Each structure stands twice: as structure tokens, then as C-alpha cells.
């Protein structure tokens, strides 16, 4: 069984393995007489992976909803709001990267191959971002709308389909 140790304090602060062991040791040493019973729960890494994939899927779904409206505004050249939309898009892509990196660091043994298919698809995100970057430099709304509608959205939809397949399998 794959196990990992980490924990959350009452105030929500997340601790890594070493910090958490030190914290527990300290807690036990100082409250030993008062402790009546100790329960230890081992988290299954697969379960954790499953939860992360679900989070990833929710994030992808949110991004699709956000950018669906934004390419319309770019095509319509709604100049007041349109470049604000780009900032929302960049934030979304940033969140996507963070989530992808966080999951990649903790993929359970035996699931690396399927995760590699996500990685392959994900590598295209940077290419699309470059395309968008060029549109930003030129302030070319049509190019930006094209990149969102015909590159970015299909990419996110594909990623989501892969994630849904994996989720079904893991479940």
C-alpha cells in the first residue's frame, strides 16, 4: 500500500511530512497524560489521486465556461471588456499549470502511463499560449478569438475527456 503522511492544523495550515511528525511528537510529549486514545488513519494515494483528478476536471470545466463567452467578445471586438477577458484567461491557464504540476508530482505508481497522455496533450497549452501572446502584441482580436475558439477550447475539452476517462477507470 502506498502511504503518505501530511496533515492539516486546526487553523488550516498544511504541513509536510517532516514538519508533521515533529508536530505530532511535540503534541504527544506535552499531552501524554491527557490522551485517552490515539487513532491513526492511512490515506490511500489512489484516493488522493482520484480527488486531485476530480479537482482538475472541475477546473477545466470552469475554464471552458469562462472562455466560451470571451471568444465571442473578441470576434465582436467589444473593446471595453475584451482585453480584461484575456487577463481572466491568463489567470485560468496559470491555475491549470499549477494543478497539473501538483498532480504530476504525486502520481501513484502504476498510473504514470495514463498521466503521460495528459502530459502530451498538456504540452500543447504552451503552443496555444504563444499564439495568444502574438495576438496580444498585435492587439489582434480576431487572432485571439481564433486561438481561443479553435485551439484553446478544443485543447481543454480534449484534456477534460482524457481526465474523465481516467476518473472512470480509477473509480
Amino acid at each position: 500500500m502506498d502511504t503518505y503522511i501530511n496533515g492539516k492544523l486546526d487553523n488550516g495550515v498544511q504541513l509536510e511530512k517532516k514538519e508533521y511528525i515533529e508536530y505530532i511528537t511535540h503534541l504527544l510529549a506535552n499531552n501524554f497524560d491527557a490522551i485517552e486514545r490515539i487513532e491513526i488513519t492511512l490515506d490511500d494515494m489512489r484516493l488522493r489521486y482520484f480527488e486531485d483528478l476530480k479537482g482538475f476536471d472541475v477546473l477545466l470545466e470552469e475554464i471552458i465556461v469562462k472562455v466560451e463567452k470571451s471568444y465571442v467578445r473578441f470576434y465582436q471586438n467589444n473593446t471595453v471588456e475584451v482585453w480584461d477577458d484575456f487577463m481572466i484567461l491568463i489567470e485560468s491557464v496559470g491555475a491549470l499549470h499549477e494543478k497539473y504540476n501538483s498532480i504530476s508530482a504525486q502520481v501513484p505508481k502504476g498510473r504514470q502511463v495514463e498521466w503521460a497522455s495528459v502530459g502530451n496533450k498538456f504540452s500543447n497549452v504552451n503552443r496555444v499560449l504563444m499564439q495568444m501572446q502574438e495576438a496580444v502584441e498585435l492587439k489582434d482580436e480576431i487572432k485571439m478569438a481564433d486561438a481561443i475558439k479553435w485551439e484553446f477550447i478544443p485543447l481543454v475539452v480534449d484534456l477534460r475527456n482524457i481526465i474523465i476517462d481516467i476518473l472512470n477507470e480509477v473509480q
Partner: protein
Amino acid sequence: MRIENINFLKKQYINEYKKIEKINPSNIDDIDYFNAKNGEMTASANINEKKFSLASEYDPSFESEIILNQYDDVDDYEYVLFYGTGLGHHINVFLKKYPDKKVFIYEPDPVMFALYVETHDLPFRNTVNILVGSDPSARNKFISDTLKKIQQKILLIELPVHKKVHAKLYSEFREAFNRIIVSKKVYTEVNYAYQKRWILNGMENFATTVQTQNILLNDKYNFKGKTAILVAAGPSLDDEIENLRYIKENGLAYIFSAGWSIATLLKNEIYPHAFTSYDPTPQNTKVFKFIDDESVKFPLVYGSTIGHETLELFKGPKLHMITSQDTTSPYYLKSKDKAKMEYVMDAPNIATITIQLLAKLGFKRIILVGQNFAFTNDKLISSGYEGTVAARKSETVKDVYGGYVKTEDKFNKMRFSMETFIKKSKDVEYINTTRGGAHIEGTVFKHLDEVMKDELIESFANDKWYELNSINYDIDYMESQFKKMHADFEEVEVELKKIKDIVKKIKTLARDGNYKQVEKMYGKLSVLFNDLKKNVYYNRYIMPMNRVYYDLFLLDVEENKNEKNQIKKAENIINILGKFLFECEKDIKKIQPTYKKIQEQVSNYISRNRS
């Protein structure tokens, strides 16, 4: 270029064809056109060695659908004006969805239009008019003609990328379009409302007009190079009462009070050098009720089409200015010394009429007071006004301080009109002193106290400036015009009857299916109509009283020329002409007593001045 497009343009829009015939889009360095990913043609412009998209590189038709989705009230329109063609995808997508809409196309950039002609079929069946190029006068004429032709609202569809690539051309177009729409709307609304009153007032007022001075025909008033203050009835007038009193008491400028501002001035016992009025409606009597016999210490300068009821109410000295809507005075009156007759153009408000008057009188500086064209402290009118002003839909415009102020459509129309006249009188310096008013293009904003300190330092205004007692019209000319008019008055009903007889014949011949004869009757009708147009009584009185019907009548006749179905064509002619003739006959009867009164007055006037 596509051969069908070339044939279509050569046949119907040869001038537009000439603008693009030498343009070959493949030879233009800065434009690339190529297949989009879905196979349609697309294009990009090279800007700083980078490609800038002119249409989607993936699916231009899909892009067009998104652009067109913004217009959700298309069903309310019969006509559409496309500003910017691009490669024409959006025009094609639009007409696939709405195949019966009639379209006007304006493309300021000939290269862009050449690309359109190269890559897509033009809408042969739907096109009403096309203009290519950025010449401002051709553009303005195109907009005016378009609006005149359709006589109804038009949907403006703008290509977003065009607005971006040609930002300056777009803003110039939009400004011209808005201005023309506003003036056209004003023209039609005003014409419809006043078409009959203008003519009747001109006739009813003629006896007074002929016996009073034409202010624009006398150069002895000594206004040249002087300063005038135009007082309007905006709420800021209340702030300047003491300044105006000081200016008047010390003769530092000529004060012309326009319309309702007289109520505020008289309430504060300030008597201007002149009061101007021109409103053709009977409601104008309200303002005259403020002027009792005691307070008549100044002359009225009236527009010759002013409501005749009001003219009778004013007991003080009167001078007139002939307005562009008057058809009586310009016909009968000519200057005794052959001086050019000057007129004031009709405008949406008396202040704009007065601005024209002051510029024509030779004032070198015109100072505007109380000309807000906006809500100031939630008020629209100065304290003298006793009517009610309902709260209306407001919008925001630039104010005199460089910020923004709330106003409404009606005031914008008035301001546009005033700005047009200000632009025309380049030798005049315009100072707007209205605190909190809308910015008026062509004026400089300065507080009245400062203007008084810097400019109004010399006393020159003469309270009795108008006492010249010289009437300067040519009696012989009046007499000969009078004879001509009377002969045509006797003839007009005969000519109308001839037209009615032809209409009756068309009805019978069409019923019997004799379309060859019907065609002949159309020719006769045209001859008779031309004769009628030459009749002075008709073209001075009857036709102008029905100018809106007449414009519609001409449009209907034009449209009916293309009717292929002979029965329908004949029916249309009968209906169109029937309605117009009915209105004309009604008015002939209506104005006969007024005409006879003029006839008598002119006759008396001539004999009095001969002896």
C-alpha cells in the same frame, strides 16, 4: 475579379468600378489573401512585418455569425447599411439568413472593396446603393441620399475589424452618420408638423412683413465689428442677471433676447435691445403674454413664418427676417436698390436662428449667455419659464469645463444645428459664458465677468438702433409678381382636373386590360404634372404645404417604375396620385380666403405707395 461582379458594377455602379478597376489584391504588398482552414477565403494585413487578421483564419463565416449575433432586432428593419465590407463574409451570411433585406454598402477603403469583389459575389438582387472611398462630401451625400430614399429607419451593421484598422475613417463616418440622422429626423418631424403652418403663417404675416423693415436688408444699423450678447433661456441665465443689467445700463454690448429668455429678463426688469422669435405654432403666444404694453421698450425681430396669432399680440416696434420656410415673401419681395435678399435658415431653436441673424448683421463677437443645452442643477430652463418640463431620458455629453454633463436628445439636435452655423461664420468670435452648460463646438468658454473685464469696456450700444423708418421693397416687382400669381391661381384647379381625368382614364383602361393605352396615359400624366409644377400658385403654396406627402409620392412613383405587373402598376398609380391630389384639393380650398386677403392687402399697399 469575378466576371459577374464586374458586369454588375459596370452596369449599375460605374463610378465605384472605376475606383477599383486597377487594383489587383494579389499585387498589394501589405495584404495577403489565402484559404482559411475551412477552405473559405480570408486575408491578413502586414503590419510591422507581422500578420494582422482581417478575417478569421479558421472559419470566417462562423466569425461573421458571431458578429451578426449582436443585432437582435433585424426583423424590425427593411434596409441595412453595411459599413466596411471586409471580404464580404458577413454580408453573405446576413443575406443567407435574411434574403429579402435591401442593402446599402459603404466601404471607405477601395483595396478592401477590391478584395470583396475578388473573393465573393456581390449581393446583386439586394443592393440598393454602393459607395467606395473616403471623400467626405461623397460620403455625406451617400448617407443623406440613403436616408432620403428609404424614408424609414435603417440598420447599421459595422464590421468590427474595419473600425479598428481604419479608426479615423470610422469615427468620421460615425459622426457624419449621427449628425445626418439627427438632422434628417428633425427635418421630417418638423416638416410633417409645420408644413402647412409655415405657408399659412407666411401668407397671414405678409401684410405686416411688407410694412416693416427687413433687418437683413439695411446696412445702416451700425452693427459691423461690434459685440452682441445672445441671451438664451437655459438655467445658467439666472446666474448672469446682474452682469446683463450692468452691460445693458452701460451700453457695453447689444443684447438680443431669444425666445423664452425674455420672460426672465423682464421679470428682472432688464430690457434687451431686441427680442427674437420665430416659432410657427400657436403655443408661441404664451411667451408674448409676458410682454405687456408697459414693458415694450424694445423691438421684436420676427421670423416671417412666426405664428400669425403671436404677431398680432406684440404692440411694440417690429422688424422681420425672412425664413427659409416662407414661400410668400421671397416671391413678392425684391430689394428696391437690387441688394441681395438675405434669409435665415430654419433651425430647431430660436437661439440658432438668432446666431445666424447676428452673424449676418456683421457682429464680430457673439457672446452666448444661458445657452446650456443640458441639465444644470437638474433644471433645463431659466426661472422665467412657467411651463412644466417633464423628466426625459438623459444622456451624457462633454461640458464647458472638459467634464461631462447630462442632457437629452432634443438639446443635442439643437446644439448640432447651432454648431453647423457657427462653423460657417468663420470671421465671428464666439464666446460661450454658460456655466455648467454643454460644450458648443466652435466656441471658447469664459465666465461673463472675465469677458466684461477683458472685452466689454467701451460703451457703444444704441437703444434706438432700429428707428430708421425705411421700407426698402420694389413696388413694381411686387405688382408684376402679383399678376403672375393671380393668373396661376385661376389656372391651378383646371390643371389638377386634367390630371384627375387622366387618372380616371387609367382606371378604366386598366380594368379593360388595355395596357398599351395605359402606357400612353403615363406619358400624358408626366407632361401634365410638369405643367402643374410650373404653376406658381401650386409650387409656392400647395406643394410646400404637402412637402412630406410630395416626397413620399415621388418615392412611390420611382419605386412603381420597376413594377412588372401592369395591373398592379396601374393600381399603384391610381392610389398614389389619388391620395396626393386629394390633399392638394383640400389645401386649395383651405387657403383660398387667406390668399384673397393677401390679394387685397397687396393691392392696397401697391396703390398706397404709388400715390
